[in-house]
């Protein structure tokens, strides 16, 4: 059975915010829109699973989160190109133009280096302004885990921006951290 029109309208309203999250997660426009495409298709396929009493954006972000993990799992199978992919991503981050070039490049590069399990909660809480409870729901993790990951992400991001590159290298694309 197809998704009803009212559901589609609701979905369309949520698209801009979902795109913002996808962009912050992938740091790249086309990858973000690929992720959007997948997430929207999944949402349309599983529309009947959406509980209208819930916040649609939380539901959608949890779909996008899972789609992103699936994508990384697929990418991880293509192990022989990972260095090139990583290079390309780094190039992209470095070449990001902007009015406030110094700040932006540092911020984006730092974000790209943050482990995914910290990046996602930090983005949801900071950019999407989710409560810890909503964040926990979207990522499927306990609230306590959200708390500690947000704070670790914050500390790590600040350290990176201060030039203390503790991890020394960006997280390899192939590494998949299953969120528990």
């Amino acid at each position: 059975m197809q998704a009803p029109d009212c559901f589609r309208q609701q979905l369309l309203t949520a698209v801009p915010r979902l795109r913002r999250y996808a962009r912050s997660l992938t740091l790249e426009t086309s990858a973000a829109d690929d992720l959007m495409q997948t997430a929207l298709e999944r949402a349309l396929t599983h529309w009947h699973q959406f509980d209208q009493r819930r916040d649609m954006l939380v539901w959608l972000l949890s779909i996008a989160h899972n789609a992103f993990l699936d994508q990384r799992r697929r990418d991880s199978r293509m192990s022989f190109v990972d260095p090139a992919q990583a290079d390309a991503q780094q190039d992209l981050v470095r070449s990001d133009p902007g009015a406030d070039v110094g700040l932006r490049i540092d911020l984006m590069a730092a974000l790209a280096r943050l482990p995914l399990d910290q990046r996602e909660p930090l983005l949801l809480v900071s950019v999407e302004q989710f409560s810890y409870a909503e964040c926990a729901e979207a990522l499927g993790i306990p609230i306590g885990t959200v708390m500690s990951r947000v704070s670790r992400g914050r500390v790590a991001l600040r350290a990176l921006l201060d030039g203390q590159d503790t991890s020394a290298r960006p997280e390899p694309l192939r590494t998949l951290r299953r969120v528990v």
Partner: protein
Amino acid sequence: MNPTDSPERPDDVRLSAWLDGELDGPARAEVDAWLRDHPEDAALARLWAADRDALRARFDPVIDEPVPAALQATVLQVGRAAVEPRARWRQVAVAAGLLVGGALIGALTGGVVGAQFAGSDVLQSAAQRLPWVDAERLRPGGWPHRAAVAHAVYAPEVRHPVEVNVAQGSASEQRAQEEHLARWLGKRLDMPVKLFDLRTQGFELVGGRLLPDAQGPSAQLMYQNGGGQRVTIYLRKPEAGASTAFRFQRDGELGLFYWVEDGFGCALVGKLPREQLLALAEAVYKQAEDGIQPSPQGRKPAS
């Protein structure tokens, strides 16, 4: 709510929760009091707040960007947009056969399908619109169309058919060029680029080139057989909304098999009989499926 002097320094988790407005009244007041008395911690909290604001400032503009038409179409169109699970090769090959059969019948009866197929020769004008089997999902500016145009432009090229030539020099020079080509294209396309081995079908790799594209770069690999016939493989990241089905398109002498598979769009273009193109497309498809297997000829790019 009484701002007593908290004896314990709030740890990072607590300070972070305070910043996110996750603490209730008394707990919040405790942290407030601590920060009043400890400027260095207050400075840290301000830094975190500034990082949060910088993240918001960086990504908030995305909200105001126009939603791409493809995404909008996905949401508003009938459920056909939902991607089917990857079809198996045999099934899609049969489907491609059916499409061609349908086109022939259509052409004979002068029906709608026939009209879709009866286009002008793409070779006469490279930029001319190719007629599409699936008008709903494929636009004239879509990537399979660009694959056909790129073939029409570069395949007849005698002196500079490719940017990186892997068919010159000694065997080791050729291998080095192949490695360079795969790495270069892979990096520019931000996706794995495999140099498919079509020698079983009698086609040698000539080389490849990067193609400019408004939607991001794409690549063209060129192959040639002993008779001087050329086929090209066009590779790119799929656009949002790209069809995932395996499809065949013919226009005049030019045939085109194309599909989207696990994050990349692939088109095989050539002036060959359909059976021969199908055999080549099948080889490409299989090699793409075994993506990470190095070919026995050492065509695996060094990592």
